[in-house]
């Protein structure tokens, strides 16, 4: 264990991959680059059936239970789909890649700041962000950020433009890149990765990318914008609210960011066929909320804090993969101060 006199109780990192919200348009595959129309949300009223489990009190009373499950379940929900003549969804967003990872945005302990900066520089000298950038670039190429819209899509094209510095364009057929692993070796991806790595490894440089993703999902098909978390559900109000910006269906920037940093294949259970969740998003405890599980628990010393606390004070980590993971959490950003009491 490293000595703990150098404790930063205030420690924060800004995120280094900054996506915008994603805006959704409808188009036809053959004219996808020229003609697009913004997608609007539609409100639907549907009559469902009561299918959730009933409260124990109701369950025990047969008459009440029957009355309860025989009520129609009227709901108003938001939905979004392509127009009848359209077969392709366009998702548009921008992504800023920032440098300066050696400098925390806030740190109240000079000794810690120094030892951290040294560890980060050693990593950059050794790895130059090659592996992380390659994985981020693959997640741009495989269109993971389409989330449910990606499932079953017939064709997917991704067009990435660099908006600053050297004017460059990359085009990907996303169906050629799987979301299950990062073994692909592709010249276009490697080139995009090299540009991203350069920005990440820099002290104060940045890269601005514009991403247009086209997915042929089929005529008039439903598409899936982000769902808003409704904390205060009033009676009779809408039970499903989708995200829109100025009347245009959209995806939250957080959701795009989550997809881009879904690169963690280094957690212990990844190789276990039964337990594995595939690549998971970079999170300090490896939390996957939908599965209600954390894959990196402090008990197994595989969580960010267990690894970071020693590494930032000059200790070597036993595996390069752990270094990748720690750096990826710093790219994600967050508040990581520890109690000095």
């Amino acid at each position, binding site marked *: 264990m490293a000595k703990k006199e150098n404790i930063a109780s205030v420690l924060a990192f800004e995120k280094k991959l900054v996506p915008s919200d994603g805006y959704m348009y409808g188009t036809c595959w053959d004219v996808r680059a020229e003609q697009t129309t913004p997608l609007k949300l539609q409100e639907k009223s549907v009559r469902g059936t009561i299918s959730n489990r009933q409260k124990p009190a109701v369950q025990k009373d047969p008459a009440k239970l029957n009355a309860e499950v025989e009520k129609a379940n009227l709901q108003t929900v938001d939905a979004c789909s392509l127009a009848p003549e359209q077969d392709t969804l366009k998702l548009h967003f921008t992504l800023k890649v920032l440098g300066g990872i050696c400098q925390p945005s806030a740190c109240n302990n000079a000794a810690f700041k120094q030892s951290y900066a040294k560890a980060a520089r050693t990593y950059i000298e050794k790895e130059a962000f090659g592996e992380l950038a390659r994985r981020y670039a693959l997640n741009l190429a495989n269109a993971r950020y389409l989330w*449910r819209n990606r499932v*079953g*899509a017939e064709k997917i094209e991704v067009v990435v433009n660099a908006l600053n510095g050297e004017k460059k364009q990359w085009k990907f057929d996303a169906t050629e890149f799987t979301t299950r692993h990062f073994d692909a070796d592709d010249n276009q991806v490697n080139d995009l990765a090299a540009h991203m790595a350069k920005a990440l490894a820099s002290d104060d440089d940045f890269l601005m990318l514009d991403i247009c993703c086209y997915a042929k999902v089929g005529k008039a098909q439903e598409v899936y914008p982000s769902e808003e978390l409704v904390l205060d559900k009033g009676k009779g109000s809408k039970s499903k609210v989708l995200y829109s910006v100025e009347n245009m269906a959209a995806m939250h920037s957080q959701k795009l960011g989550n997809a881009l940093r879904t690169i963690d294949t280094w957690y212990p259970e990844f190789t276990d066929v039964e337990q594995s969740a595939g690549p998971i998003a970079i999170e300090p405890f490896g939390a996957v909320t*939908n599965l209600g599980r954390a894959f990196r628990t402090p008990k197994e010393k595989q969580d960010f804090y267990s690894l970071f606390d020693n590494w930032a004070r000059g200790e070597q980590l036993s595996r390069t993969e752990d270094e990748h993971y720690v750096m990826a959490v710093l790219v994600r950003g967050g508040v990581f101060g520890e109690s000095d009491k």
Partner: protein
Amino acid sequence: MKVYIDLTLLPSDDIGQNFLWQKMFQQIHLALAELNNAKGVQPVALAFPGYRVHGLGNKLRLMAIDSADLHALDLSQWLDRLMDYVHISSVRDVPEKVEKYVCYSRQRSKTGVERLARRYAKRHNIELEQAMAHYQDFQPKYLKAPFIQMQSLSGDQQFRLFIERTWCAEASAEATADFGSYGLGKNTALPHF
């Protein structure tokens, strides 16, 4: 049944199991319908090894007597766009010793009076109005079985394909079984393992 293929759903954040069932089953249904058209009968049966009261689990099993039928399905073609979300096993032999047998069948809900009346009118060869009168005091019965949300390919209708499981004492004669385009059969007991 002699051979089988297991399909395993690989859900992840945001892309849940029920959503994947819906997407995968639509393709399986098409594949089975195609085989049905080509052969006149449909010899592949579906089983749900992870079947529970509240869901179908994460596995779909396709079973047949002749492995040629499973190969003819050409699943990797039908599931081509879902390969990141579904794992397809190779064709495997059904274990020789099986202790339990099971039957999966479709359950139709009795909730829509009009649909029931249409059917009643047809069966009894009477006018729809008379049939409606027959169902005057009708109380809808809701099903509790697990289901797959389906999209009708002919219309824009959504419907639920309810699947019921019944345990059977022993295997039934299955050589001539025809499982239709949903791969479900009321009268055929399949080995459960």
